[in-house]
């Protein structure tokens, strides 16, 4: 990962995706450099989540290419399981494994896939749980946690695989307003540590302060992208202005 500092980590070219007759993504081009934090903003239904899910192939693109570390994910027979090990993902609905406790959630993938022994995996997991402030809940059952706690565990679970890239799919949208902050704080710390991140979010303040690049999506295309200063202070597109006006009113 160090030898490719000047190479893009993710390069997307001509990406298209339809669900039935509804075209969700129309010709998307995007690059993410190592260490970069890219936030994707836009109205609901503009294709943000689908774009994110195409990066780790939870959705299969109809056309176009997604290169991750120079490997084309859209090629047939590509070992997506191996590639996904280095792409962590955090979901809107947390999706913690309900049949396990917090620690087992974090150790399942390292033990299964990296053939790590249980003690070592638990040590790593505890360190990550500490870093998101969930260390004392290691043996709690998932169903006893609050939304914010679940999401922090979900982040720790993804970090346990030591990923190169983290995808966040509206990580705070299912949370009560008063606990959004605790999750955003964890994400901020992660960004400071230099993690490469692609974040789909409606938290404009977060996008403004943390991202290196902001992407505004509208009806399946990238309408505008640039530095947070440019997007939030001097947007070029009418649609961007319209969208931001609605959010900045609140």
């Amino acid at each position, binding site marked *: 990962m160090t030898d490719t500092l000047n190479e893009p980590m993710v390069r997307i070219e001509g990406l298209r995706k339809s669900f039935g007759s509804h075209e969700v993504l129309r010709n998307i081009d995007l690059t993410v450099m190592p260490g970069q934090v890219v936030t994707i903003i836009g109205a609901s239904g503009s294709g943000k989540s689908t774009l994110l899910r195409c990066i*780790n*192939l*939870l959705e*299969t693109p109809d056309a176009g290419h997604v290169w991750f570390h120079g490997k084309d994910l859209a090629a*047939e*027979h*590509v*070992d*997506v*399981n*191996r*590639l*996904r*090990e280095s*792409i*962590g*993902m955090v*979901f809107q*609905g947390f*999706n*913690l*494994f*309900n*049949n396990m406790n917090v620690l087992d959630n974090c150790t*399942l*993938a390292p033990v*299964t*896939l990296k053939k790590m022994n249980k003690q070592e995996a638990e040590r790593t997991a505890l360190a990550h749980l500490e870093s998101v402030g969930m260390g004392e809940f290691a043996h709690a059952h998932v169903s006893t946690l609050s939304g914010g706690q679940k999401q922090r565990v*979900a982040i720790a*679970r*993804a970090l346990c*695989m030591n990923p190169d890239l983290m*995808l966040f799919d509206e990580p705070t949208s299912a949370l009560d307003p008063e606990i959004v902050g605790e999750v955003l704080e964890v994400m901020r710390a992660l960004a400071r540590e230099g993690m490469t991140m692609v974040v789909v979010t409606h938290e404009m303040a977060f996008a403004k302060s943390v991202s290196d690049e902001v992407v505004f999506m509208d009806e399946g295309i990238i309408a505008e992208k640039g530095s947070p200063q440019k997007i939030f202070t001097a947007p070029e597109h009418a649609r961007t202005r319209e969208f931001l006006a609605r959010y900045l009113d609140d």
Partner: protein
Amino acid sequence: MDAHAIPRRNRLVAFVLDDHRYVLLGTSVVACLGMLLSSSPRPWFSFMYYAYPVEVVMYYLLFAWVCVSVAALISKAMLRERYAQASPFTRPPVKSALRCTSYLMWAITAVLIVDRVVMGLASAWAVATSVQSRPEDALQSILYMLWHGRDMFITGIMTTIELAVLGTVIAFFLALLLVFCRIQTIDRPDNDLVRFLKVVGAWFAKVYSTVIRGTPMMVQAGIIYYGVIGILRGSGMGTTEINALWSAFTAGLVTISINSTAYMMEVLRGGIESVDIGQTEAARSLGLSQWQAMRKVVFPQGIKFAIPGLSNELVINIKDSSVLSVIGTFDLMFATNTVAGIYWQQLQANMIAAVAYLILTMVATWLLNKLSRRLGGRGAGVTGMSDSTVNAEAATAAADQMGA
């Protein structure tokens, strides 16, 4: 179980120990039952025969209770809305007295039930097991057939239990195999051979389920039993060899296993599909393969949803194994038909079978409920009763408070 037991016991205790407005009506029903029993013929073993005057007194006490109830009803009809305030029956001391008297009525009826029903059964049993030919009296006749056909009924019941239990267990493991074939989907890392096998597996499971669930088990039993006999005969085996290798019991067990597999597969599939898709996505996003995600995350959750349906399958198999009697499997139904043929009493023999099947299914349901609670699933709820009477009781209590 514990969550329901406490309020239910409290309700029962309240019904017995508290004054409530149903004491007259409820106990009248009991009193009428007692009077009916008292006027029915005395069985051989009746002990009240030796205390005839006591029974006369008991009868008129019950009669008196009914009269009081009728008086209360007339009072209610005349006073209507003013009943709660004006009628003597709603005064607290009267209500207490009525409640205490009602205990006597229940006790009298209980004595009569023992004297007529329990002793009646005992007398009929004594007659049935001692006489040489089948008595004409229906109850005695049934008990006579039960006693003289006991070896057949016991063999039949044991065979039915074996078929149902073994069949369900075998079917469960086959259904596990089949459901994994059924839910396979093409995944990107798969090579062409794996893709081909997955498609074939899924299709096989689908066709299997359609064919087996779309044909009666009785027909399947016939095809399997006679089909294999035909194959064995074609290979040059003699009748005795065939019977040793392929008995009606073996054929029945194979049939019930094959049949139940299809249903259990659908139950398991339903359980697996009711697990949130996000669980799979999270597992896959960490790099787990389709199989690993299924085995470690989805299946352990899905089987919990499937436990009630899987338990139900055992109960269904207890009942449905009866159709295997057509190929000569000596189960409870076959025993019933045999006994019915000996005495030419089809109705009575089938009533014995009905009671036996009911006891078997109720015991199975009870055991499965205990088991599934231990496994942490929901209760089986197969022939379970409704627990939703709580509100009605609460409403009654509230109405009582207002009336008093």
